[in-house]
C-alpha cells in the first residue's frame, strides 16, 4: 500500500515509517499538516493519484492545537474516498464527532498509545484502508458515558458490551471472536439492541456504526439522566 503520514515528531514518524515499511508498505512522511494538505489537496488526475491511506496526528505545527484533525476533515471533503486514520495523544468525543460527521467509511480515530500494540495498529491500518471504520474504545466509552439514559439501561450488560464493540466499528464476526461466543449469538444481541434503540437494522456494518454513533451523540442527553 502507499501510505502518507503527517506527524511532526521525528521519532514517531521514523518509528511508524519503519514499522509500516517492514510490513511491505510504501511510506511518504510529512512534518506538518499543511505539507500534507499541499500534496494531497491537489485535484487527482493521471499524474497524481491518491495514496491508499493517510495517517495523521491531531496536534501539529504551527499552532499545535488541532491542525491534523482539520486537515483530515478538509481532505475528506475534497476526496470523500481517501482513507484517513487519525492518531491522537488524547481522544475526545468532540473531535470524533467532527471527524465522523460525514461518511464514516474508511475513517479511523485512534489513541496514539495503541501504536504500542503493533498488531492493533496494523489491524486498524488494514481495516481503514479496506473501507472499514475504526473508533478508539476510549471514545466509545465517552459516548456511552454521555448517553447514560433510561433507554440504555434497558440493555443487558452483554448487550452494552456488544454495542460498544459495534460502535468501535467491528463486524459481527470480530465481535464474536472478541467475546468468545458464536456469530449467531452476536447477531441475536445486535438485533435486540437495534430493536431496543429503535434503530432500523441496516445491510452493512458502516451504516450500523453510523447509526449507533448518531444515536449516541445527538440524542438528547442533558437534563434527562436522573
Amino acid at each position, binding site marked *: 500500500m502507499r501510505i502518507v503520514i503527517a506527524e511532526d515528531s521525528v521519532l514517531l514518524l521514523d518509528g511508524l515509517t519503519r514499522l509500516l515499511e517492514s510490513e511491505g508498505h510504501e511510506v511518504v512522511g510529512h512534518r506538518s499538516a499543511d505539507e500534507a494538505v499541499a500534496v494531497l489537496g491537489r485535484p487527482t488526475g493521471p499524474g497524481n493519484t491518491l495514496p491508499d491511506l493517510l495517517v495523521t496526528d491531531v496536534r501539529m505545527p504551527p499552532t499545535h*492545537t488541532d491542525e491534523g484533525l482539520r486537515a483530515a476533515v478538509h481532505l475528506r471533503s475534497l476526496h470523500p474516498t481517501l482513507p484517513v486514520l487519525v492518531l491522537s495523544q488524547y481522544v*475526545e468525543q*468532540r*473531535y470524533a464527532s467532527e471527524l465522523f460527521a460525514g461518511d464514516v467509511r474508511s475513517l479511523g480515530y485512534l489513541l496514539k498509545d495503541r501504536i504500542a500494540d503493533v498488531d492493533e495498529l496494523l489491524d486498524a491500518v488494514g481495516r481503514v484502508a479496506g473501507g472499514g471504520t475504526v473508533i478508539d474504545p476510549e471514545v466509545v466509552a465517552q459516548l456511552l*458515558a454521555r448517553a*447514560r439514559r433510561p433507554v440504555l439501561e434497558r440493555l443487558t450488560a452483554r448487550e452494552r458490551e456488544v454495542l460498544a464493540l459495534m460502535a468501535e466499528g467491528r463486524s459481527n464476526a470480530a465481535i464474536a471472536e472478541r467475546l468468545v461466543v458464536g456469530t449467531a449469538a452476536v447477531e441475536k444481541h445486535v438485533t435486540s439492541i437495534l430493536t431496543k434503540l429503535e434503530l432500523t437494522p441496516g445491510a452493512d456494518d458502516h451504516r450500523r456504526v453510523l447509526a449507533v454513533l448518531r444515536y449516541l451523540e445527538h440524542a438528547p442527553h*442533558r437534563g434527562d*439522566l*436522573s
Partner: protein
Amino acid sequence: MENTTRAAQAAPASGAVPPPDAPPPVTPPPAAPSSLVSRHTSLGDDLDRVAPALRGGQALILAPWAAATWRSVSQVAIGFFVLLLAGVVALSVVPVFLVLTVLGVGIPLLAGVLAATSPLATLERARLEAQLHVRIPAPAHRRHGSASVWRQFLALLTDGRRWAAIAYAAVALLLVSVEAAVVWAGFGGSLAAVALPVYSTATDLTPAEVTPWVAAGVMGVWVTSWASQALALAHVRLARALLGPGQRGAVDEARAQAAMAQEQAAAAQERVEVAQVRAEHLTETRTRAVGAADTERRRIERDLHDGAQQRLVALGVELGAAKRAAAADPDAARDAIDHAHREVKEVLAELRDLVRGIHPAVLTDRGLDAALSALAARSPVPVEVDVPDADALADCSPAAQAAAYFVAAEALTNAARHADAATVRLVVRTRDDRLRLEVADDGRGGASELPGSGLEGLRGRVEALDGTFDLDSPPGAGTRLVVEVPCAS
C-alpha cells in the same frame, strides 16, 4: 470531626474574607454645576461691559462711537417708562398701603404689591440683560408651598428681596430720571452748541463768540458719553444689589457650594476606601494565587517523579535484563519484554492523565462545553451536565473558562473519590458577564479546605480572578460547590 468544623468555617467564608465582588467600579467625580460658580460678576466685569470708557485709554477717546454709550442711551429711553410706572407705584401705593396695614386692612393689598415685585424684577433683569448685556441672577424667594394663606402672606411680607425690589423701583426711578436728564440735556445741549454756526446767522454773534460754544459742544458730546456710561454702570450695580440674590442669597450660595465640596470630599474619601479595600484584596488574592501555582507545580513534580519517572526507570531495568537474557533464555527475555510493553502503556496512560490535569487540549481547542462533557464522560460517577452552548460561552475569557473547568474537575474527582456519591449535577450559566458553575453531589458531605488541598488551591485560583468560591458540605447531606468568576477576567 475536624473536617466538620473546617467545612463550617469554609462555607460562610465569603463573608469573612473581604467580599471579592464588593469593590464597586470607580466613577469619576460629579462635575460642579457651573451656574453656582459663575454667579457673581465683579465690578470689573460690569465696567468692561457697560462703561469701558471709565477704564481710560482708547475707549475714553472713542466713547461717542462706542456701542456701550448708545446701549446706555437706549436703556434710558425704554427704562424710563418701565420705571416710571413701577416707581410711581412704589412711591405712592406702598406708603398708602403701609398706613392701611397699620390700621389693619392693608395686608392683602400690600401682599398683592409684594407678589407683583417678582414679575417686575424678572422684567427688569431681562431688560438689562437685553439692553446692557449684563446677567443678573434671580434671588431665591421664600416659598411655603401648600401652607396656609396667612403663612403665605407672612412669607411675602418678610421676604427682604421683595422689599428690595420695591426699593429698586423707587431708587431706579430717581436714577433713571437723572440718566434721562443727563442724556437728553447733554446730547441736546451739545448738538445745539455744535450746530450754532448753522443758525448763528439769525443771531448777531460773531465767529469769535461762536467758536467757544462749538468747542464746548464738542466737549459736551464726550462728557455726556462718559456720563451716560457711568450712570448705566450705576444702574447695573443698583440692580445687582436690589434685584440680585442679595447677601442672604450669597450666603446660601456659599453654603451650597461648601456642602457640595463636602459631598465631593466624602465621595473621594469613599473612593479612597474602596481602592484601599481593593488593594488589600488584590494583595491577598495575588499571594494566594502565587501560592496555589507553587502548590500545583509541586504536585506535578511529585506526580512525575513518583509515577512516570519511576516507571521508566523500572522499564529500563526490565529491558536491560531482557537484553542480557535474549541469547541465553529467550523465554525469560520475551516475558520481560511483555512486561516492559505493558509498563510502557501504563506510563503513557498516566502521562496522558497528568497532562490533561495540567490543561486539557480540548478546553483550548473547543471550549468549556466540550471539555466539561469529556470530563463528565470520564467520571466514574454518573454526571448530569447542563452547559450552555459554545456561542453563549464565547464572551467568557479563557482564564474564566479554565477556572470553571478545574473547579469542575476537582469537584468530580472528590465526588468519586471521597464523597461516595451516586450522582453529580453540574450546571453552568452565564449572567451579567459572570460565569457561574454549580457542582452538587448526593454524597456524604463534610468536604473541607485543608491547607494545601485541591479545594484551597481552587479558591485561590478563583479569587485571583475576582471570583467567589462557596463550598457547602454539611456531613451526610452532600456537597454543593458554587463558583462565580467575571467573564472578562
